[in-house]
């Protein structure tokens, strides 16, 4: 029997596969298609203190083997997420990782404190890497000192382990990772999207109304793998890796590079059954490669 379980701070995962934040809403839509209890965990859409209406449309544009998005953290706000979305998810046997966003440290602290008390929230993912909002988000994720202090502030109030979501839009991602480790983070999730643009060739105007957007999908996998590899080499924090995962071999690659579990984002739009399909294929693929547990695979590239 292949052992798919993964133990991480706050999280006893049945398997290492979970949908990434923002690509799965609060689960309701995909629950029409399959039983969410199959998933290792669910990373819910970013939650802010107040309702956020997001950016003007177009908010998405297709690019070579990828897509840009500038949703702008649209979400119903803390009260609705705590009062409606999270209780609804309780019917499933699946740990929730709540994605927390804000424009000030106080915002992050307020959401983290409240949402970490929900019974099914087993960990927080602090989004200091959203490229699509004018204030906050990415500014917290590009300066190591700011990232460390935010981590500290959130850690102080959270009732569950805290994972910090790193931005790839930095020169030295290891320095940010080390800073959040020093701030007391329990883990790292990475990567968020890469800032990009697409033009309408005829008019010369950017397609995305926000002008720039975050690049995701298969196109970013090499960048994500490189960053997971570097960060896992230089910090002790467990990593939930993501960026361009579409199939079981991508999962193997992220685990080999040093991730302990993975998240699947954009691929849900292409194949809504991608998560359960990968979970189904994982035991056989591990077996073929000569492993009988997921944990054996984690970070193997560093041991070769």
């Amino acid at each position: 029997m292949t052992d798919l379980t993964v133990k991480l701070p706050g999280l006893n995962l049945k398997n290492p596969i979970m949908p990434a934040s923002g690509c799965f809403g609060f689960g309701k839509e995909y629950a029409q298609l399959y039983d969410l209890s199959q998933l290792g965990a669910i990373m819910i859409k970013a939650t802010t203190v107040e309702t956020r209406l997001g950016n003007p449309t177009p908010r998405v544009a297709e690019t070579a083997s990828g897509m840009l998005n500038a949703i702008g953290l649209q979400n119903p706000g803390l009260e609705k997420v705590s009062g409606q979305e999270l209780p609804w998810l309780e019917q499933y046997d699946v740990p929730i990782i709540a994605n927390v966003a804000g424009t000030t440290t106080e915002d992050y602290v307020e959401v983290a404190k409240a949402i970490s008390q929900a019974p099914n929230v087993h960990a927080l993912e602090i989004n200091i890497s959203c490229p699509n909002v004018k204030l906050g988000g990415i500014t917290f994720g590009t300066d190591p000192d700011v990232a460390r202090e935010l981590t500290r502030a959130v850690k102080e109030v959270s009732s569950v382990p805290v994972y910090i979501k790193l931005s790839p839009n930095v020169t030295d991602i290891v320095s940010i990772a080390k800073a959040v480790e020093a701030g007391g983070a329990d883990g790292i999730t990475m990567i968020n999207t890469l800032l990009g643009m697409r033009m309408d060739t005829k008019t010369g105007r950017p397609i995305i109304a926000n002008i720039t957007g975050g690049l995701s999908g298969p196109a970013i996998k090499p960048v994500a793998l490189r960053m997971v590899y570097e960060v896992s080499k230089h910090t002790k924090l467990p990593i939930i890796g993501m960026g361009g995962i579409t199939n079981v071999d991508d999962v193997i690659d992220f685990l080999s590079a040093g991730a302990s579990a993975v998240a699947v984002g954009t691929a849900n739009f292409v194949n809504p059954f991608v998560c359960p399909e990968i979970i189904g294929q994982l035991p056989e693929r591990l077996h073929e490669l000569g492993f009988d547990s997921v944990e054996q695979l984690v970070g193997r590239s560093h041991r070769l």
Partner: protein
Amino acid sequence: MIKQERMQVIKQQEIAKHIFELTLQGELANEMAEPGQFVHIRVADSFEPLLRRPISVASIDLEASQFTMIYRAEGRGTGLLAEKKPGDMLDVLGPLGHGFPVEEAQKKAYLIGGGIGVPPLYELAKQLNARSIETVHILGFESKQAVFYEDKFRELGDTHIATVDGSHGTQGFVTHILNELPSDFDTYYSCGPTAMLEAVQWAYPQKKGFLSYEQRMGCGIGACFACVCRTTKSETDYIKVCSDGPVFPAGVVIS
């Protein structure tokens, strides 16, 4: 219920310039009910192009478990779609969204369409006629070469065509025809470019109307917040075109 299925291509033909009619068969077709719903199509098994393409259902044949779409092949995705041959399999997600409410019409309905907004009006016209509602079709196209389904609409009711260049029917937009027609209908249904939807709404502020909107999509099922529009209800109210629509009552969506 929403399904994902590899459906079989039964027929594909170019029925006007760059306009293709594509018929697919599979169990998913049996889930289709309302006119105006759409499907989300993966045009290649690779990740290039990556995203699915939303295309409306133009007619449903439940007996044969088939449905037909009509689309304009212009970009990468629809270009690849146009290469599919009978016997090929196509990855389809659907049926998606909420379509036109046929039960809202009482006696006579105007169906107003522009370009690639015309296709869903065909299944709508069929279903309204089946309920003994008189339908009048006002359809706008770029030019004579782009006109399709004129005869099929004529079989179902009065049909008026406008072309931008005047090469067929009335020269100009559908609104030019609407100005000449009596307002003796109780309900209108419309699908087409946003500017056309706006003009139609302005033309009939007193009438009951239903409009089908377009937005660029990610997931197509309501999970990603790509396709959001605000509404006239309140400052903070919004809808998702993919799952709350694409059809909404007139006067609701701020596009």
